[in-house]
């Protein structure tokens, strides 16, 4: 399956008073298009930090993304992040983190173009993630006003007078008995004719007027927007498009620079079996227009020869590299190298060429800066902000009602005007899901979305997620500590322990035959209503001990102090995430073929 998100070697650390804590230590993940990947592990295993790092929501400092690449939609989300926070070692205690405000600001601005529209997140505690002083509808509308601004502006510009069909719809809405059908008609009508749904509803309920009188009132409601609103809509739309293009350019440039590590992995025969047979890579140098690859003549030659020696690339080598790139399309490397247009042969190196950038246009750049300045100035004044943004907000209302209905909130109209505390936990979580879906993301990260809810409500939410998955075709990264929920929902499971992925398997294989001793322990300690051979009342199998303190993780395999199969090597050497069989990965010395003489579990 073609991956939509490729995470490689993600490392996130925090400085604490007791030292440097590496919460995520080299995580590799692939999420396929439309796939549900579950991440499980005990609390304190780094599941949430992984998710927050992907969204770039780690508070820096005390946090810091120390390394790794996150490829999403052709760009590396972490490109340039090494500049964001600098580390200054101190003679005593943990190193000091010095944030660079300008870099952080630019990185966040770039991420704002991906968050919501590309990937979004549902948080664990709905009550603490909704703003208690704002109405629910406004909070969802705000998301749409930010993420789908161009669409909203288009709709403001397309307002028109009523047609005969609109009038018919309105008549239907008056006579229908089913409140749900009525809501649906009103939503459709207000979307088509650019009307405010609440005003349409008020007219429908105005039973003192005859139906014809109500239609006349509706005619007056419709019509072209004011001139100022049209100007503002055009302005916003243009600014948004410019901003998007600006960020995309910047991001592409940074991502190309960070392709070096990806290229090293691509030609590493241990990590990529397709690269076997190619000469070893000596060095990589990322340039503006191309990535230059220098090869060594043979693996035996030492590094000292690199400078003068090196392989003079032949036409065959060029073709082989081209083939390698072609065959890896559709896989994780395909995602990373999607930007490469052609493979060329230089004098000393093979060049992976990128498309030429459009020439720098000072006029356009000035126009953009001017517009951005004007926008910021106008929004400084609250009264202006209210006046200008109100039509946009009203436009968003129709979208909000659609979203609330999509997540199956009954009486969406009523909920729109309510405050979060007036909703139950399940309804609040639905609102959060609606907000996450507002930008029509390709990937939704759900961080324990049902942990704070009752079983029956959890069943409702899980059913909703399954249903949504079919309808919107988004990939879901589902984080939970409940293996039963994983079994219910996901296609593939990644098991995390102490900041590392220890097993990554399709869900059916994992539950049929868990490989890693930690996964086995987790599965055995589940208390289930469908009890296996276990007699009720007999002691449950447990994993002895607790998750280690990440300030001071155990040597070698981090699970070895709790593992019943641990042997000498586990204490000394850290296991790599290897594939004992296709589709499955496990980080355990028991499955390392070179050490096949050890006892298997």
């Amino acid at each position, binding site marked *: 399956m073609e991956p939509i998100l490729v995470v490689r070697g993600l490392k996130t650390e925090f400085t604490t008073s007791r030292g440097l804590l590496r919460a995520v230590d080299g995580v590799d993940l692939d999420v396929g298009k439309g796939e549900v990947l579950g991440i499980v592990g*005990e609390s304190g295993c780094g599941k949430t930090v992984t998710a927050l790092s992907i969204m770039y929501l780690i508070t820096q400092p005390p946090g810091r993304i120390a390394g790794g690449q996150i490829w999403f939609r052709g760009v590396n989300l972490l490109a340039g992040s090494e500049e964001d926070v600098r580390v200054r070692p101190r003679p005593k205690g943990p190193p000091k983190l010095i944030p660079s405000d300008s870099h952080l600001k630019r990185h966040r601005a770039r991420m704002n173009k991906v968050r919501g529209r590309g990937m979004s997140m549902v948080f664990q505690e709905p009550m603490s993630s909704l703003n208690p002083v704002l109405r629910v509808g406004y909070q969802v509308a705000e998301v749409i006003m930010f993420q789908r601004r161009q669409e909203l502006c288009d709709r403001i510009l397309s307002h028109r007078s009523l047609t005969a069909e609109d009038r018919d719809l309105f008549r239907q809405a008056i006579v229908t*008995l089913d409140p749900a059908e009525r809501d649906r008609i009103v939503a459709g009508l207000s979307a088509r004719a650019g009307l405010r749904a609440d005003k349409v509803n008020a007219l429908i309920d105005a039973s003192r007027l005859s139906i014809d009188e109500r239609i006349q009132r509706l005619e007056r409601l419709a019509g072209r927007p004011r001139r100022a609103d049209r100007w503002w809509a055009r302005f916003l739309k243009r600014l948004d498009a410019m901003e998007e293009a600006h960020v995309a350019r910047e991001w592409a440039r940074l991502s190309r620079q960070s392709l070096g590590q990806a290229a090293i992995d691509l030609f590493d025969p241990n990590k990529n079996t397709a690269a076997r047979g190619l000469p070893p890579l000596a060095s990589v140098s990322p340039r503006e227009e191309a990535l230059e690859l220098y090869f060594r003549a043979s693996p035996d030659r030492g590094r000292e020869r690199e400078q003068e020696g090196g392989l003079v690339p032949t036409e065959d080598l060029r073709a082989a590299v081209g083939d390698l790139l072609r065959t890896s399309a559709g896989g994780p490397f395909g995602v990373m190298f999607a930007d490469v247009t052609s493979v060329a042969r230089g004098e000393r190196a093979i060049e992976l060429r990128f498309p030429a950038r459009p020439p720098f246009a000072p006029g356009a750049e000035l126009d953009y800066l001017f517009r951005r300045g004007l926008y910021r100035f106008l929004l400084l004044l609250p009264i202006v902000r209210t006046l200008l943004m109100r039509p946009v907000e009203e436009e968003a209302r129709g979208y909000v009602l659609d979203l609330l209905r999509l997540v199956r909130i009954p009486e969406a109209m009523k909920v729109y005007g309510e405050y979060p505390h007036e909703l139950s936990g399940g309804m609040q979580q639905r609102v959060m899901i609606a907000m996450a879906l507002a930008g029509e993301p390709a990937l939704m990260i759900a961080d324990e979305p049902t942990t704070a809810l*009752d079983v029956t409500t959890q*069943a409702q939410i899980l059913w909703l997620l399954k249903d949504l998955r079919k309808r919107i075709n988004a990939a879901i990264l589902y984080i939970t*500590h409940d293996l039963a929920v994983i079994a219910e929902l996901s296609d593939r499971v990644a098991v995390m322990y102490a900041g590392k992925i220890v097993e990554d398997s399709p869900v059916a294989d994992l539950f049929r035959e868990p490989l890693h001793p930690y996964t086995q322990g987790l599965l055995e*300690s*589940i*208390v289930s209503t469908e009890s296996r051979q276990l007699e009720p009342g007999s002691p449950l199998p447990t994993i002895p001990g*607790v998750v280690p303190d990440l300030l001071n993780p155990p040597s070698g395999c981090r699970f070895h102090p709790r593992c019943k199969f641990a042997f000498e090597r586990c204490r000394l050497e850290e296991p790599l995430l290897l594939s004992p069989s296709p589709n499955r990965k496990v980080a355990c010395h028991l499955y390392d073929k070179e050490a096949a003489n050890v006892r298997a579990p």
Partner: protein
Amino acid sequence: MAKVHAVDSVDLAIHRGETVALVGESGCGKTTLGRLLLRLIEPTQGDVLYNIPEEEYERIRGERGSDSGDDGHASDLVRRYSMSRLRRRSMKSLRRFLQPVFQDPFTSLDPRMLIKDILAEPLIVNGIATRQEAYELGAKQLQDVGLRAEHLYRFPHEFSGGQRQRIAIARALVSEPEFLMLDEPTSALDVSVQAQILNLLQDIQQKQGLTYLLITHNLSVVRHMADRVAVMYLGRIVERAPTAELFANPLHPYTKALLSAIPVPDPSRRRERIILPGEVPSPINPPSGCRFHTRCGFVLVHCGWSPRDIATIATHLFDPSRNPDAADLTKLEEVVIQGDRLLLEYHTPATEEHRQRVERLVKARADLPDGIRFRAIQQVALDDGRIALEFLHPMEPSLDEVSNDHFVSCYLYPNSTVPGRPK
């Protein structure tokens, strides 16, 4: 101020040495019931009896059966064992035998006390031991729950969730109680730690012959731990049975939904799942009749439909400006709920033709798939120029025994009484 009956007319007996589980969603009153049993809250009505000899228990049960409802005059027998009628001081001497373990080990331990003080406090407060003895007993107890003596001189924040829950259990056990109220003891913990705590609780019960009341929403834990289960919904017990019987043969529709809602940790098994529509109604104004009827998939005509269940639809259905089928009626002015009747007031006094029109509308609606609430309308009558829709008087199903020790409160089961017309 509105009154909330968090727990309403609950009968529950817990025998010595057994584990009774109380399950239900949040807000159903299970925690309130647990606190009532320990007299952490005073009941508005009713008694909690404690330490009844077996033969007396049979007599008390007989008494309850014969004059139930006469709560004002408790017999001497009830008075003798009643805990709710004890004075403060006598109650205090009982407290050491009745101990709670709360859900969140992060908030139930005093962050400023050392573990040794936390463990010694129940003994000192209850005057069981001198300070010196208390520390020794506390240290011994701590080892019994699987922690070491070196942990005595630490503060609660230095422990993980599982360890803290062990400390909370040790604190409850140190005064040698007979009864533990376990209020969601493992819901804040990870699966692997949950298994450790459950094993510990079972161990202790076997060694010391304790009685547990296990309050939880996790049915898997119930299956593993409990001898008998009571399922609560909106302050009432809707089903009560031995654990094996309840899981093999759940009777109440709510229990069925609850059981089917638990995710199964096996991707190859796909089970039919009952998704309950809507949410738990507010206990301030619970549905009449069977409290579950508004969400029940097997609902019957006499389950307790009342005028408020159709009030909103009525404003659409009987309004000529909304519903073309009602065109020959005059303008609908008001819809009033009056006891078991819904009164429709029109602009002009209603006539017999109007009544017949409304009756036809009710009939048509009753034939639709979700028309059960309209089928509960007994009669459409004229009342002083208004049209009255008369409902059955809602009655709550009683908790009846349908098979050996399996009690259920639902009209679907033949043993339960079906209400007749209002008297």
